[in-house]
């Protein structure tokens, strides 16, 4: 494993990190950049807890080598409300709170990143659209029906 400097753009900030190139983005975010909002859940792209936005698209950071990011921009839960998707992210945040979506809350960063991408591409999602968008995500607390309602509420607010 050879160490090398890798430059990244995370939450609109340029950073240089020092990690083996195959290190998954997840561990760079959590350990080197202390952006712990992005969670480790499964390590094999099964649960969605580690979801971040790379060039605006949801990406599983647990299986994305940090060297594969290149010049693409990374957004995490910590930065998304102040970024280009801020309006959507803030509407979702408010809806998450008002519907009481989080229980243990561990999976919710990944859920929110998925929801941001959904509402950017589909301003008026149906239940079915929401179900499809979240098939890659797991919540063991069963926050599902509130999550669905909160996505609708955020979509209505943004309309």
């Amino acid at each position, binding site marked *: 494993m050879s160490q090398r400097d890798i430059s990244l753009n995370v939450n609109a900030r340029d950073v240089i990190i020092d990690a083996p190139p195959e290190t998954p983005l997840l561990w760079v975010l959590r350990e080197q950049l202390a952006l712990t909002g992005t969670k480790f859940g499964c390590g*094999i792209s099964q649960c969605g807890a580690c979801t971040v936005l790379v060039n605006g698209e949801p990406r599983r950071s647990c299986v994305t080598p940090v060297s594969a990011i290149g010049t693409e921009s990374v957004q995490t839960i910590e930065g998304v409300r102040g970024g280009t998707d801020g309006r959507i992210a803030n509407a979702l945040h408010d809806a998450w709170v008002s519907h009481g979506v989080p229980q243990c809350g561990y999976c919710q960063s990944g859920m929110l990143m998925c929801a941001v991408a959904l509402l950017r591409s589909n301003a008026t999602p149906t239940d079915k659209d929401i179900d499809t968008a979240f098939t890659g995500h797991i919540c063991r607390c069963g926050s599902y029906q509130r999550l669905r309602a909160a996505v609708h509420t955020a979509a209505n607010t943004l309309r």
Partner: protein
Amino acid sequence: MPPRQRLFGSAMPEAPQNAVVLNGYVAIAPDDSVTVFAPKAEMGQGVHTAIAMLLAEELDCDWSRVRVEHSPVDRIYANLAVARDAVPLHPDDDATLSRAIGWFSDKVMREVGGMITGGSTSVRDLWDPVRDAGALARATLVQAAARYWDVSADSCTVVNGVIAAGNRSVRFGELVQGVTELEPASRYTRKSPEAYSIIGRATPRLESASKSDGSATFGIDVRIDNMLYAAITMAPVFGASVRSMNERAVIDLPGIEAVVRVRALNGSPHGVAVVANSWYTAQQSLPKLDVKWDHGPNATLSSESVRQQLRTQAGKPDGRSFRNVGNVTEVLESASKTLAVTYEVPYLAHTTMEPPNCTVRVNDNSADVWVGTQVPTQARGAVAGILGIDESRVTMHVQLLGGGFGRRLDIDFIAQAAQIARAVPGRAVQLIWSRTDDVQHDFYRPACASVMTGALDDSGNVLAIRASSASQSIVGAYGARNGVAAAKFDPHKSTVEGMFDQPYDVPSMDVLHHVVDLPVPIGYWRAVGHSHQAFFLESFLDELAHAGGNDAMALRRQLLAHHPRALRVLKLAAERSQWGSEPAPASDGARVARGVALHRSFGSIVAQVAHVSLGAAQDIRVHRVTCVVDCGLAINPDGVAQQMESAIAYGLSAALYGDITITNGRVDQRNYDSYKALRLHESPVVDTHIVPSTEPPEGVGETGLPPIAPAVANALFSLTGIRIRQLPLRLDAVLETP
């Protein structure tokens, strides 16, 4: 004399900046902020909000200024309710005896008891002391104001954190300005329930915003200067040990700090850990260790052999009796109709979203532990023992838990982290398990088999039920690995709770259990014994109803005729689910059927009606669940509804998918791909109805789980005529069986 022994500890909690600690549960700061010290872990069940509501109600503070911190470890926070609940007495028949034993158990727990978040006991345990703490704090502040103004305390009123007398008023915060303590009032009175303005009101969870912006800190998110990370490889076969490893292949790799042999403590397997500057680096180096294992005596164990043993034992006539009324043997011999069938459930894993993890820093003659745990007292004792230092030298920093469900009642990973951190003194080490570690080294919900025998008269009335189950004992296994002396006393309620303690009035009933010793690690899983005994009893009652030509709802109504609370729950479930009418078909036109189940656990009664259809591939689809709960006074109705939704989702994951299997002494499943969890598109709409009540609050976190599996199984029977007596529910497997 007020029960002050639960309000003032040997050491008071550390006050937030400039704040004054008024008692073991609350501090007030000059800016009027109120810090509630919660002695229970927040793992999603909403208990921090519920505790804060109890306290704020009596304190009359400004709710918007309330925040919660986990309390330190102290004897005043010992969980008394959990010991009371462990007594295997029938809640209706043995109330007097139960009260007497409870009084004695409270005395013992006050002396030796530890802090425990589990058994749906949190609100029951804190209902009195936290209201006392709030009322005492209010009286203390009023006393200070009254002395300042030289008026009587009785002439003061308190509204929203402001004390007033005549035309003078003072904020709570002003009273603690520039002082380090306030003399506690000698008397206080609690409000009468009619005056409640916070308790009983649907209240948003206090951590909702921080859990929706990534700022909430779970154990795995703890960051300490100069910290290290550890990954571990554990003996794959139950009871195996390390024979050899190639430490030299790893120790000089870049980023590696230490290789540590980890002994089997508190139920954990033997293992080898690697400490590195990144968890990924540590994890990637594990295969290079090339650890060889001595597999020991369990290398041929399989879940199929376990199943055969459990079936054989359950069929035996001996076994410990937990309830014996009437004369089951006689009735079975003379009844016109009898039914004897065997039910089975598999081992289950918890798979909390946050994998087990723990951060420890070993200093000179002291240690810090940052962890999400349900048992901080026990964890502290174990760490102190491993490090050979006094308990008082170990500081527990309890973090938010990314799910608990009983998994974090065990301290195996904490004992590992302490052993690992000892190798790099002065530096914090965070041990994180991979998901595969978690799935393969859990303490599983025990597999269980039960032979159910029933007798009916000519009109289909239930005359007798005998339930004879066989499984490992959770209390026995947990007690042995953690040195809990009380666990040596039989009988263990957890083996048959959910069968012997139900509100049904069956004229003759015999509940037996056979403890089977097996090397599979088992532990507390949401709803514990209720999680499977409810499936056995509620499915079997359905069978008896159909065998006797009765409606499933009508049969239950009859058996609950003398239990008004349960009857009310059942009737509401029938009304709200429109029981008796033909359900509307699914969106693809498939027929929908209903199934009902009712269950009492942790003091609460829950009835659920599941609306189920089959997809094109005979896949089981649960569209809607009507859920009615009587949990006594609902402190936070929105929190109760959340827990019903949560328990139904968790129970459905198990009912539809949950199956830990064992081949050659090791667990076959590895991750969420092979151990599936319910996802959004598979989850039902849950309609929760809370029965209004002024009775004392009862358990909420687990009580919604037991009815869901039998409700779905009963709906499936209604839909297909096929009775499934095994979990997970698999129609395809049944249809293929000749």
